[in-house]
């Protein structure tokens, strides 16, 4: 409503009531005696009122432009306040703005000046009264800023500026301007706050340098408390279980009380403000007002900052201050922690032997980063990053192509990481084996951008591995030797028992042979004696007796018998002689005492052996002897006989139906050659290199042990000779043995004697001087 219209209504309302009452009296006069005086009074009153109104309107119309101006002041109002000589105070005028500022209409104030006083803050009432008195006494203007209730019901700030005018009647009138300066005060206060905040924030980095995290946070919180006018500031550390412990006072951890601002802040993860008494926290009796701020890192709160007991309510400004300062301190602490962690990591990295690289995925692998500990290789990180020398030059030339190929292959295969081992050349030319554990950095399209390599020096490991490999190889060689020796031992044990058997058999054969040969000799003598008697008898016969004897002689074919008997005996003796030789060979072959080194005729050995295996060969083989003149060879003839036996048996077994075996011996310089050829099935190329391996056999189960050739190989090697084979599958094989006439350093005859190992049991290397 228009205030002026309101005022008019207010002013004219009593007049209208009076006129109404008069009209009621005139229309329907009550029949009483008091009517005439009442009517007269009312009429007089109405006239007075009209007069007063007229005066008022006149004055109003004179002040109207000024008052309109006053009514239009924003956030302010004009007033005329008068205290008369009796001390009665009243407003002569007050702008309508009072309603905008205080929510009280001008009319109400004009009607009751105490309304305004009531709206001022109780603490400031004394001040305004004192100022008034002072101004009245001295006639000086006064200015005052005081708190007053605003239209919204909150306390605001009002600035008063009043100039007193003293009148003749003893009254004093103040012309004043009341301005609502709440916003200005707030603004300036906010400005000051911002300035102090900035000051506090600027001080933080310096503090962060010298304080640890709790001290820094605590300092920041203290500063925030100062800025916000909080009398209480608390910092709580939150452990992994959500328990609080106050900092710096070390109290036992405790849970935040349910429903408290602290618990609420931790639950919500954001600042919580309560401008009312809150649940007490340890070290903090029931706070009147409280703001709690959780300081969180990756969701988990680590600190709880608390401000409390501010005289006024906390507003967003205070919350912001707390958040800003403590948050900044936290960020600084975090950054410092991260920096320290990075420094530590760098120190640890540099102290280790592991070298880190980053190469760009470009030609030449330019080095983006290399850990400074690369100086253990004699390079500096700066030089390597500048390409002096390029990384490719560090890789051993023999490994470079392989490394490059692998990198390309791994990259193309889309791998995110891979392992490589290669050699690195250090600045002083040493070679170091490194294990390169590389991660490939790729962009969104999968294009490789860079490679992060962790190079571990594995030289020692490689060396150990190589040494181990070598040891392994040696061990395997040793195992092989052992296996060979074992095989030979087995074979020689077998041979020894065969030898014993043969010797026993020979002995048993020798007895009958002895008497048969002897008897046949005696029989020969007897026959000659008989013939002598017969001849003598025939000589005594006369012609007739001889004629009678002739048919008898003819019937018994005497002349033929006489001639053939001696031939028969001679042939039998020849056969017996052969038998004797075979038995002799059997004994020679098996004689255990014959394992000593001595000079021997290899042709004879070959013949003896052939005699023994003849039974195996005679039905399907024709044996050709092409035996040259051989000088005596220093050897263990029993062992060589064993070799000949094995080769001859093999030759016989290679021949399926009928074939030929050729024995050829030749002497050439300081060595002799013995060749045993057959026209058998031959040896397939894939078997050729394995035939001397122990237990390798192509014969059916039961026919071959797979030991014969390996044994032969061992024996020939012990004689410092060699054994070779030429073979054409389907056409036959030739085994060639080449033996030195006198092997270097075989033991003397006396060393091996009776009781010594049987043939083949001797080590393949009789002396360390003999070549392997």
């Amino acid at each position: 409503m228009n205030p002026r219209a309101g005022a008019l209504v207010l002013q004219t309302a009593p007049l209208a009531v009076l006129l109404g009452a008069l009209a009621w009296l005139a229309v329907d006069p009550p029949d009483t005696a008091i009517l005439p005086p009442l009517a007269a009074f009312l009429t007089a009153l109405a006239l007075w009122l009209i007069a007063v109104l007229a005066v008022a309107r006149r004055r109003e119309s004179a002040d109207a432009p000024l008052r309109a101006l006053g009514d239009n002041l924003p956030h302010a109002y004009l007033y005329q306040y008068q205290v008369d000589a009796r001390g009665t105070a009243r407003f002569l005028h007050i702008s309508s703005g009072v309603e905008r500022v205080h929510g009280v209409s001008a009319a109400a104030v004009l009607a009751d000046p105490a309304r305004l006083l009531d709206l001022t803050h109780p603490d400031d009432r004394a001040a305004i009264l004192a100022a008034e008195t002072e101004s009245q006494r001295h006639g000086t203007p006064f200015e005052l800023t005081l708190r007053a209730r605003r239209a919204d019901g909150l306390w605001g700030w009002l600035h008063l500026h009043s100039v007193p005018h003293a009148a003749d009647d003893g009254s004093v009138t103040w012309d004043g301007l009341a301005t609502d300066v709440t916003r200005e005060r707030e603004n300036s206060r906010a400005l000051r706050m911002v300035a102090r905040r900035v000051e506090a924030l600027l001080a933080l980095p310096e503090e962060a340098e010298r304080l640890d995290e709790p001290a820094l946070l605590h300092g920041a919180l203290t500063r925030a408390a100062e800025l916000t006018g909080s009398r209480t500031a608390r910092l709580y550390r939150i452990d992994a279980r959500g328990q609080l412990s106050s900092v710096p006072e070390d109290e036992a951890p405790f849970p935040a009380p349910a429903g408290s601002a602290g618990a609420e802040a931790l639950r919500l993860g954001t600042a919580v403000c309560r401008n009312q008494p809150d649940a007490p926290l340890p070290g903090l009796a029931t706070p009147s007002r409280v703001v709690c701020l959780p300081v969180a890192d990756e969701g988990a709160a680590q600190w709880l900052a608390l401000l409390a007991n501010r005289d006024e309510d906390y507003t967003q400004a205070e919350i912001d201050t707390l958040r800003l300062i403590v948050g900044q301190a936290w960020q600084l602490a975090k950054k410092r922690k991260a920096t320290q962690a990075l420094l530590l990591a760098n120190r640890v990295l540099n102290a280790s032997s592991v070298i880190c690289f980053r190469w760009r995925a470009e030609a030449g692998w330019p080095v983006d980063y290399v850990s400074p500990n690369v100086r253990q290789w004699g390079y500096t990180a700066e030089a390597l990053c500048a390409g002096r020398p390029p990384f490719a030059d560090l890789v051993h030339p023999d490994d470079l192509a392989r490394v490059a190929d692998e990198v390309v292959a791994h990259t193309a295969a889309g791998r995110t990481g891979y392992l490589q081992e290669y050699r690195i050349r250090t600045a002083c030319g040493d070679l170091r084996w490194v294990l390169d554990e590389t991660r490939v950095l790729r962009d969104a399209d999968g294009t490789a951008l860079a490679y992060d390599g962790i190079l571990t020096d594995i030289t020692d490991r490689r060396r150990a591995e190589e040494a181990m490999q070598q040891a392994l190889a040696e061990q395997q060689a040793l195992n092989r030797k052992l296996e060979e020796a074992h095989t030979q031992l087995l074979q020689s044990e077998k041979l020894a028992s065969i030898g014993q058997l043969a010797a026993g058999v020979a002995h048993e054969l020798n007895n009958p042979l002895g008497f048969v040969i002897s008897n046949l000799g005696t029989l020969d003598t007897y026959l000659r004696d008989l013939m002598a008697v017969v001849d003598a008898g025939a000589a005594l016969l006369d012609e007739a007796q001889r004629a009678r004897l002739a048919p008898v002689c003819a019937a018994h074919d005497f002349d033929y018998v006489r001639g053939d008997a001696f031939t028969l005996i001679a042939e039998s003796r020849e056969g017996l002689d052969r038998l004797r030789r075979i038995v002799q060979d059997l004994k020679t072959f098996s004689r255990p005492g014959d394992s000593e080194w001595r000079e021997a005729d290899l042709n004879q050995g070959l013949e003896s052996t052939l005699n023994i295996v003849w039974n195996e060969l005679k039905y399907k083989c024709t044996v050709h002897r092409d035996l040259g003149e051989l000088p005596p060879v220093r050897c263990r003839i029993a062992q060589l006989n064993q070799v000949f036996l094995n080769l001859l048996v093999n030759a016989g077994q290679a021949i399926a139906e009928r074939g030929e075996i050729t024995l050829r011996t030749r002497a050439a310089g300081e060595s002799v050659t013995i060749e045993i050829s057959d026209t058998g099935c031959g040896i397939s190329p894939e078997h050729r290199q394995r035939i001397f391996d122990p237990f390798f056999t192509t014969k059916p189960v039961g026919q071959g042990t797979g030991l014969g050739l390996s044994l032969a190989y061992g024996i020939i090697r012990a004689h410092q000779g060699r054994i070779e084979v030429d073979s054409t599958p389907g056409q036959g094989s030739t085994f060639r043995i080449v033996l030195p006439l006198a092997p270097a350093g075989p033991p003397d005859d006396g060393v091996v004697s009776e009781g010594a190992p049987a043939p083949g049991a001797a080590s393949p290397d009789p002396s360390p001087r003999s070549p392997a």
Partner: protein
Amino acid sequence: MSRILILDDEESILKALRRVMRAAPCAAGGRTFALEVEAFSTPQAALERARHEPFDLFLSDYRMPEMDGIAFLAAAKALQPDAARLILSGYADLNALVRAVNEVGIDRFIAKPWNDYELMSAIAQSLAHRELVLENRQLANLVRIEMGELTPEHLEAQRLEALEPGITRVNWGPDGSVLLDPDLLERP
């Protein structure tokens, strides 16, 4: 006539040897020996015979059941030390040979199967050698008698001692008695 004892566990060998010794000449160094052969197939029988009859030569097989040739020849040597000793064996074992030479002092080791001629000449040589040794000893004794180193009584005692070992020694008991058999003292 030279007396020869042959021992082999195989009868056929014995028969063959008899034939050879009967028929083949046994001659060496211009001397021919007539042989009188006794053959045995067990060492026990042969030793029993050797206790009662003198022989000029023992020829034994080596490998036999119960007692080998060396043990037999050692026993024969104890009975008749002056007889020649030969081994005829099909078992050419170096160990056997060493034992035969060292323990028994054999004259020859002949391998089976033997050659008749070689066998006979080996026998003849052994006999000749034995005769030579005996003759030398006899001549030496004659010289010693002449030189007074030896009396004919000594010589006779040696002869008797050779015939019956121990016969020339007297065992005197503590009481002056003559002990014919010392073993009797030990019996209760």
